[in-house]
């Protein structure tokens, strides 16, 4: 009993600095944000308490719902684009291809490049006048396929999604690769003895073995999708006319561009709520299957 107590103290002392930092940069600001969110405040002058006015204004603002819709697009892009692609790439690498180290580096590169660089690169690719994409289409004689990729309402979200997949799938590739390499050889050998090869083995052995890793990746991908900001800010700035705006951009524009700090804080609280709700749902679904 005595030793346990001492251990607890040691654990507490060990964790204390991290706890202070976490409280300081995560928990307390959320509280402050909550406080601002019920205020009418331009960031400089006097604050006035206005109750839930900010929230009711946000929830009746079409632009906000457009940004929520775009967030859903980004979330689905992550789930059905990045994760499967990351998994496929990881499996290919796990087969022990020649030069897999090289491919792993190449695949992971977009993750370490700054988002602003990624956006600038894709901005050039999508450029209508001299962009690589339109030039390539012209090269193959497909002029009629050329588009105003970022400026056209029909294409802008899709174009952003492609850039978003490119940017992040390397991360999931590395996560999955690590998990794949942890599957004991005996399991695979046993599966093969039982006649499970190729696709069947992937479906019935590999993926179930990766379940917990996949769940983590799903949660990570969702929370990542709620934070997407810089990619879109640089590529389109949320335009044309809010068509590619996401919640973080909406918050940024409200607070910093339009000097509505209270309103912006309320948006940030809503972002937090939305991501908590979605992640809770996903966790529930994951657990039910376990049972």
């Amino acid at each position: 009993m005595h030793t346990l107590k001492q251990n607890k103290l040691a654990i507490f002392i060990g964790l204390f600095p991290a706890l202070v930092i976490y409280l300081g940069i995560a928990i307390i600001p959320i509280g402050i944000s909550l406080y601002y969110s019920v205020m009418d405040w331009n960031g400089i002058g006097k604050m006035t308490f206005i109750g839930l006015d900010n929230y009711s204004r946000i929830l009746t603002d079409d632009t906000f719902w457009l940004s929520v819709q775009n967030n859903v697009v980004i979330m689905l892009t992550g789930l059905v684009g990045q994760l499967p692609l990351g998994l496929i790439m990881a499996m290919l690498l796990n087969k022990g291809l020649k030069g897999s180290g090289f491919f792993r580096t190449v695949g992971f590169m977009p993750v370490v490049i700054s988002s602003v660089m990624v956006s600038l690169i894709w901005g050039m690719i999508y450029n209508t006048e001299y962009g690589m994409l339109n030039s390539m289409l012209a090269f193959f004689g497909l002029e009629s396929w050329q588009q105003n990729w970022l400026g056209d309402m029909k294409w802008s979200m899709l174009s952003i999604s492609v850039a978003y997949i490119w940017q992040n799938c390397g991360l999931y590739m590395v996560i999955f690769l690590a998990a794949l390499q942890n599957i004991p050889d005996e399991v695979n050998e046993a599966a093969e003895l039982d006649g499970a090869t190729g696709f069947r083995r992937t479906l019935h052995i590999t993926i179930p073995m990766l379940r917990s890793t996949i769940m983590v990746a799903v949660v990570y991908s969702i929370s990542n999708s709620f934070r997407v900001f810089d990619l879109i800010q640089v590529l389109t700035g949320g335009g044309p006319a809010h068509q590619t705006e996401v919640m973080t951009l909406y918050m940024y524009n409200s607070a910093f561009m339009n000097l509505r700090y209270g309103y912006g804080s309320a948006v940030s609280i809503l972002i937090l709520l939305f991501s908590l709700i979605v992640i809770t749902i996903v966790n529930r679904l994951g657990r039910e299957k376990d049972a």
Partner: protein
Amino acid sequence: MVTMKQTKKAALLGLTGALALFTAACGNGNTGNAGNTGAGGNGEETITLNMMHPWTSPNVDNEVYKARIAKFEAEHPNIVIKQDGVPSAQYKTKLRTLAAANNLADINVVWPGADLEPLVEGSLVEPIDGLMDNWKSILPESALAGFNIGGKQYAVPTKQTFVDIIYYNKDMFAQVGYTEFPDTYDKLIDAVTKLKAAGITPISLGNKEQWPLQSSYLSIIGDRFTGSDFLTKVINKEAKFTDPDFVKAIAVIDELTKLGAFNTDANNMDSVQGQDYFIQGKAAMHISSSTVDARIRINNDEGDKFGIALFPSVEGGKGDPVKSAGVVQYGIAIKSGLNEKTKAAAEEFMKYFVNEDLYKELIRNGVVVPATVEIPEDASPYLKEMLELTGKGTAPVFDSIIPTQVVDVVQNGIQALTVGRGTPEKVAADAQEAIDQMN
């Protein structure tokens, strides 16, 4: 209490840490009031002044400002100017963010009117009435008015910008039968139609940042239809954005869009790319500020190809068609609450920086200034032409009068028109709703 407030504000910045990339909130944390007390050459104290400015792009006037700062430092060895240059597209955002954290630089470049008001309201900038004798003889009241709030002067401008100059390619207009720039709206539309038919993009537009259509277009088109007192009336609730005249002005953007007057990628080209597109001879017109004249004509070997004009008169319009939409820019303001020595140094800097020599140097480089100084004989003929064009009366610039959050609604509304969404009536109604919501 002050520290408490500061802590709270600092925490707010922490929360939006992900955004720090753009606001660069973490840029210069140490805009401390106290100067360094290092020993100067002759035992004098060295004072460090922090200065934030948007003079990062290679514009002619930016070079002039920076040269002047360097000269000041050379002549004042005990004062060091620590510059924080922020690209102009992000400058206002950073200024507001630092203001919210009560963390402004000692010397700041500020915009007049609606942009300055919150800073004054929060007592963040120092009145400089005591210094005004320095500029009494060269700065007319019209140049100072925007920086005068509640009877106190907070900044002096370095530059006058006309935002609505139409640059046009003379050859292309001649090609469709116009040897002079169209002087009525109907003729302009006729020219646009003919240019389009000749396979020429009529107007190059880079509206990714959204301000060009609002500032350079709507300011002056609105003025032509409504006359110059409309925007102030809207603020005072004596007029509404939904008034038919203003809706007609918005409808001009809609009409130009439907005629295919703009380049297809107008919304993902920024303003500088828009200029390039015009300079490279890919479009017949470009509407932008007088500052751009340096790139398009003064420093361009082929500058003669291009002419300048103002937006033509419109039928039944209440505005005077010789007016140009102008605003004074780059007010130099001092942060309030500096200690005595720093404040003295900041005032010394300001007196030195903004004086006749600066204005003359700017003019020599083809920049329009708000001061009444003699125009040097060797000034560019292009500048003289610009002064001639813009010297017949000034119309207000939309975003220097209308509060930011309403401007945002208008910008997004007219951008939507350019992609075929919404109607001029809807844009006007949304703008009116936004301004009604403000108080």
